[in-house]
């Protein structure tokens, strides 16, 4: 949960939002940092060209700790939700990210990011605890960026919603992974991506990508490409997002090569954006909208959870957020996120949901949060999920965000100065 505008890859040298970072244990972290030292690299792995030992990268460590007490949570409320009781202490979506960035020749930036986050399963203390959600290398210059590795699905970058966790109401807020068996909700948010992003004036971005969407439904053991797409996004200048009417907007198309035995290819078009209903430094009200239409697949009944991800459908998500910032300093936030989804070829499968989320800042980076979530699914969908038709849950807890940068030497590409004056890479 952040007060600031939603994360976008183009905002940072190595892109990672706190809320989408992941957790590593202390011991693992120490090992990670040690490996980052030049001699560590030399011992651990041969580099094609020997490193220049005097060149120090910029180092960033970012993280989010999310801990809530969930009351009334349905064990199978979310696709693939764990086997928790109706009340639990939830630590999922806590994350830790490590990144290193280096200024390259001719003003370009190279970076490497690695991070993991906690899953629903981690609440139980057994099973898979962590999910490697970021492990990618990025190269970017003024007008060009390419990145390769595990990171956010490109389809998940157009609009982000102000729910407590990134996977709340995910059926409406994300383009779902048709290859997921539903056991791990993070499979809808992250994938292995190879992407090229071109931009115009560092304001409008075209992302061309291929993906390996994690294939747990087919239990595929390889990482072959199974998704191809393009997206366009326009972003307003940073720091002016509170006073401009249009913050961002974008659209995309994705082709997922689902096999014929599962109904054939599942394609998706999506579009959305963020506008300020009330631009203000003190009392901001913004609106987020995302519509995604999935088509091309012949699934006409739900025999398992995976079918619900690939069947033709239309989902729309809308959020209204009020941010109170007395004298320009964020203090509290209240948001209402709503979603509705219907299936073209499956009857009795409509669903809708809403999340009312409140945040109170206790200090820099530390927030108290509370959220009420209601979801309703028609019978066919509820049966596919193996749960009830209705869900009511209340979550209260604390969130800790931090982002520390060491050896600062690289400025963001999309700074106001770079946008409004000549681009200077340093």
């Amino acid at each position, binding site marked *: 949960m952040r007060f600031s505008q939603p994360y976008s890859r183009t905002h940072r040298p190595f892109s990672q939002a706190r809320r989408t970072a992941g957790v590593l244990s202390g011991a693992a972290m120490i090992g990670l940092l040690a490996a980052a030292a030049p001699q560590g690299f030399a011992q651990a792995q041969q580099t094609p060209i020997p490193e220049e030992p005097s060149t120090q990268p910029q180092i960033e460590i970012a993280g989010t700790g999310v801990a809530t007490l969930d009351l009334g949570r349905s064990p199978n409320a979310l696709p693939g939700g764990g086997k928790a009781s109706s009340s639990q202490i939830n630590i999922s979506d806590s994350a830790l990210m490590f990144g290193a960035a280096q200024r390259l020749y001719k003003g370009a930036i190279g970076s490497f990011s690695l991070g993991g986050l906690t899953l629903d399963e981690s609440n139980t203390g057994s099973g898979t605890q962590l999910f490697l959600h970021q492990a990618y290398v990025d190269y970017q210059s003024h007008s060009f960026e390419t990145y390769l590795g595990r990171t956010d699905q490109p389809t998940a970058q157009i609009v982000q919603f102000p729910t407590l966790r990134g996977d709340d109401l995910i059926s409406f807020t994300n383009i779902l992974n048709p290859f997921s068996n539903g056991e791990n909700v993070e499979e809808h948010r992250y994938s292995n991506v190879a992407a090229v992003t071109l931009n115009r004036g560092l304001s409008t971005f075209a992302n061309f990508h291929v993906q390996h969407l994690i294939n747990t439904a087919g239990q595929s053991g390889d990482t072959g490409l199974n998704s191809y797409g393009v997206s366009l996004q326009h972003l307003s200048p940073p720091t*002016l997002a509170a006073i401009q009417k249009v913050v961002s907007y974008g659209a995309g198309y994705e082709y997922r090569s689902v096999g014929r035995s599962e109904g054939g290819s599942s394609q998706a078009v999506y579009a959305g954006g963020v506008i300020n209903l009330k631009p203000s*430094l003190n009392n901001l009200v913004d609106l987020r909208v995302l519509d995604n239409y999935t088509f091309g697949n012949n699934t006409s009944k739900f025999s398992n959870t995976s079918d619900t991800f690939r069947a033709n459908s239309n989902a729309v998500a809308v959020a209204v957020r009020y941010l109170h910032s007395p004298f320009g300093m964020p203090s509290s936030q209240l948001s209402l996120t709503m979603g509705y989804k219907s299936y073209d070829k499956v009857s009795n499968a409509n669903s809708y949901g809403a999340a009312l989320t409140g945040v109170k800042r206790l200090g*820099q980076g530390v927030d108290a949060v509370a959220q009420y979530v209601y979801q309703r699914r028609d019978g066919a969908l509820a049966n596919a999920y193996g749960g009830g038709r209705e869900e009511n849950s209340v979550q209260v807890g604390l969130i800790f965000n931090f982002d520390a940068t060491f050896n600062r030497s690289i400025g963001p590409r999309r700074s106001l*100065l770079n946008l409004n004056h000549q681009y200077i890479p340093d």
Partner: protein
Amino acid sequence: MSIFRRFAKKKNEAPSAPEATNSRRQFMTHLGAAAGASLLLGRSATAAFGDGSAPLDKPATAWPASFDALATRPQFAPRETPKEGEKIHKFRIEVTIGEHEIVPGVKAHMFLFNNMYPGPEIRVPENEWVQIDLVNSSPENHTIHWHGMILANEMDGVPMGTQWPVFKDQTFRYLFRAQPAGTHFYHCHVMTTLHQMAGLVGSLIVEAKDDIVKKTFPYEREYTMLLSEIDTAWAREQLNEMVGMGMTMDAMNKDPKLMKEMNGRMMGWFKDKKSLLDAIKGGYTPPYLSSMTGANRVITPNFFMINGKSYPMTDELFIKYGENIRVRLIGGGMMPHYIHLHGHDFWHVCQDGSPLAAPVRLNTIPIFPGATSDIIIQGTNPGNWHFHDHSDLSTTNNGIHPGGMMTMLMYEDAEKYGVTFKDTIMIDS
């Protein structure tokens, strides 16, 4: 061909007539500026000094030394206004955001006075009137402080202290009499740490009518060396933040709905201490509290400049055997520098613009932030001589030596005296 570098000035050059200076420094006379000077023009000269009413003409008790204890008193009343017929030297200084190259390959966004860093050198004859229109064409607020000038309080350029800051698209007119004579400088006084580091500084030379330095050490050429530093990463971050804030405020100024939200607290402005304390009781959180800032990042300059350039792009100083040159050193940054000349002693003749009681012989002179020192170098030892900061942190570029505050004193006739070694540029030692 002129052998003078950027700020050199020949003897007998036109005595800083405003037209000549304007042309050379790309100034423009500006007549339609706004209100600052009118504050003075509308008042009678009822100042504490210079009108004969001040009781400060004698010390209370005899001073044990034979010097004039009131020599710091301004020659003219600072609150006077120009009388009919008195000459006024008019300048226009515009603040913009642009790029500046420190050394090849290292550029930085900076605030610029008339698209230059440092700002244009202003030269005016002692005791004559100076009118400068500050035109703000940048999104951030600015003022100009005339460092070393004895002038009317309203002209001193301290935001919230003597004037409101000059907002985007506004013009403020400064008017003062150029006193006292000597080497001075000017800089923006809004968020001085950033604005001065990020470019808003320039030299102000008030030429003495009866210059004891020139009488004692006749010279034809002189040089100004403005010393400054920059932490490029810190300046970039802060500049981006400030520009964002400035653009936001500008947008609020233009939108009645947003304008209603404008509040001094957002800028950290309070009319007095009580207002600040009341605001804190009411929930205002000062930005310096640890809960707001955590551990602050220390400013660590990584480029050190003479007139905005680091070695090897600094300008050399030229001299001939038997010649005197005057060098005006200005501490225009936040660090002290210890300027050392190889192969020579030199004479320290002025400090903060004023002649010393007697010249002092040195080969290394400390230049502290905000201070100016004038030295006379005598051409006594032909060759090419290192002239540099002896605090060797400042002779690096991004931590790599050589760089920073290094230049050379070059004898133009060195070869005539048997010196044949040609100075070359060294990038990496």
